[in-house]
């Protein structure tokens, strides 16, 4: 059984339109799954649903999320929070806003270990230093005492990566973790996440709109359109020739690293019409 199992998850804006449409996906231990789709497709919502941080305006209509076989819905709110805190971690999109500006870096790495998992302060401190070293931060002891504004975006993302891995989570959700960074830093951070994932043998759900990144680090991927999984396949097969017309068009619309001048073809209108029709069909089937 996979570590993460999302089954037929449907979300909607309270008394409003659907945001996710019967999404199913799974991530095994040690697997990296890409989650791709255009902006607004609902990629972040999947992550938020798993982490229990959906906005108040969004409600779960149906579906199940299992962590290691346990249906999160069967747990009390308190136990659910604890399980997620202990087993899942988030690498956020924007490192500039994901660290608390008025607190030092150190406590922001150790707080989960101490407050939620009950580690001693000393152990947590040692663990944080070890992790900062693992993500190649020079002089970790000094960085622990720094405030976020004293550090660069790349440094802060490394800190957030260290913080995510500190409690040895079984699953990491990375929500476009490089989009907010300088192009020069993006590759380093990407490689770092991949290396850390491999070393810790973590399940990784990697949200991105960049198929080039998927080809580099993911074993499998789910393509999302309007909150619906259009294709769920493994990476090699996908790049050999995706099954769905929308995926094919998406692939053509992605610049190739080998040939950046290759003129981009936007997703053709008839493909969009076809996939929209599929979505409409789905909604009709549910009587909405």
């Amino acid at each position, binding site marked *: 059984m996979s570590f993460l199992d999302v089954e037929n998850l449907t979300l909607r804006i309270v008394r409003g339109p659907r945001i996710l449409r019967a999404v199913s996906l799974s991530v095994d231990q040690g697997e990296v799954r890409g989650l791709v789709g255009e902006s607004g497709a609902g990629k972040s919502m999947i992550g938020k649903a798993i982490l229990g941080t959906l906005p108040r305006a969004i409600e779960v209509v149906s579906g199940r999320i299992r962590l290691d076989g346990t249906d999160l819905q069967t747990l009390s709110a308190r136990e659910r929070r604890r399980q997620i*805190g202990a087993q899942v971690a*988030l690498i956020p999109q924007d490192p500039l806003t994901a*660290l608390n500006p008025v607190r030092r870096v150190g406590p922001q790495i150790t*707080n989960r270990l101490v*407050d*939620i998992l009950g580690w001693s302060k000393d152990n947590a401190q040692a663990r944080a230093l070890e992790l900062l070293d693992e993500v190649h931060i020079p002089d970790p002891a000094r960085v622990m005492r720094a405030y976020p504004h004293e550090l660069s975006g790349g440094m802060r993302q490394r800190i*957030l990566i260290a913080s995510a891995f500190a409690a040895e989570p079984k699953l990491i959700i990375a929500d476009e973790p490089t989009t907010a960074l300088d192009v020069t830093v993006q590759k380093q951070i990407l490689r770092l996440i991949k290396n850390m994932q491999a070393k810790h043998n973590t399940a990784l759900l990697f949200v991105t709109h960049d198929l080039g990144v998927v080809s580099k680090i993911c074993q499998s991927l789910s393509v999302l359109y309007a909150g619906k999984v259009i294709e769920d396949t493994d990476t090699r097969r996908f790049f050999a020739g995706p099954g769905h017309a929308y995926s094919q068009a998406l692939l053509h619309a992605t610049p190739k690293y080998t040939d950046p001048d290759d003129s981009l073809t936007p997703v053709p209108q008839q493909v969009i019409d076809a996939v929209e029709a599929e979505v409409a069909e789905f909604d009709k089937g549910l009587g909405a």
Partner: protein
Amino acid sequence: MLLMRSILARLVATCVTLFGAAVIVFFVIRVVPGNPIAMMLPPGATEDDIARLQALYGLDKSIFEQFVIWLGGVVQGDFGTSISLRQPVLDLVLGRLPATLELSIMALVIAVIIGGAMALTGTLRRETRTEAAIDVTGGMALSVPDFLWGLVLILLFGVLWPVFHISGRVSPSLDFDFATQFYLFESVLRLRFDVWADLVSHMFMPALALAIPLAAIIAQLLKQSLKETMHLDYVTLARTKGYPEASVITREALPNAVLPTLTLIGVQFTFLIGGTVIIERLFSYEGLGNMAIDAVINRDLPLIQGIVILFALIFTVVNLVVDMTYAALNPRLRHA
């Protein structure tokens, strides 16, 4: 270097503010009709008597000359002599200052506790009836001025259900010799909690009356600021770590949300101190404000001047403390 310069700029600004206050109060109270000398003399005093007394208090000179003489004294720490009480203004004013400070600070503490609790509860229960109830309560608290709250409190807890003292600062029957004017502070230091309880029983209602509007303002601003902070990424990240909502609010959101609220609390606190004038009168509390009203009634020009200068000084100190606290709480400023 930069620090030295900002301190210097601050001092200059303070002096300018105080000078401005001095000019305004000095000339305004002399334009308003009413003669302090006439009020001191028994009916049937001769022109001669009046002239002699006027000369004694320097009131025979031109306004401008009077101002220069007074300011010259002030610079050397001599605020003149009270006409009605016949004691040095400085002694009188400093003698009453502790009473007003204790009252204001107690009011501030009450306001922060009530307002903070309302803001935190409102944020925890945002977009529910609880938040709506908090908003309505705050709106009501704000639409009634502090002295009316004072009257309401007197009726409730002084008359209908008399649990607190409604007048004075301390029970005359109390067998206790205060060494300082900081009664409340002193009673704690000397571990006389019976005295402390008596003092609090006197101070509680005036302090609460002063605190209610400020509490409502703190509740509104802090809740607004907290709710905005709750959307930020680091707050969400803390939530994913397993913290319950209440800890997310107090640990992650509060330290940031407090910053914008702090400046406004400072400004509002100066209004609160201004409010002590009427509240002290209402509760016959022997502080500066009560003395100020007597001074105005008696046209006691030197005393009015002294009190106004002292209030102006308190306001600038409050602002300074607020700015320093802001800098201390905000690491981005601390290292600038």
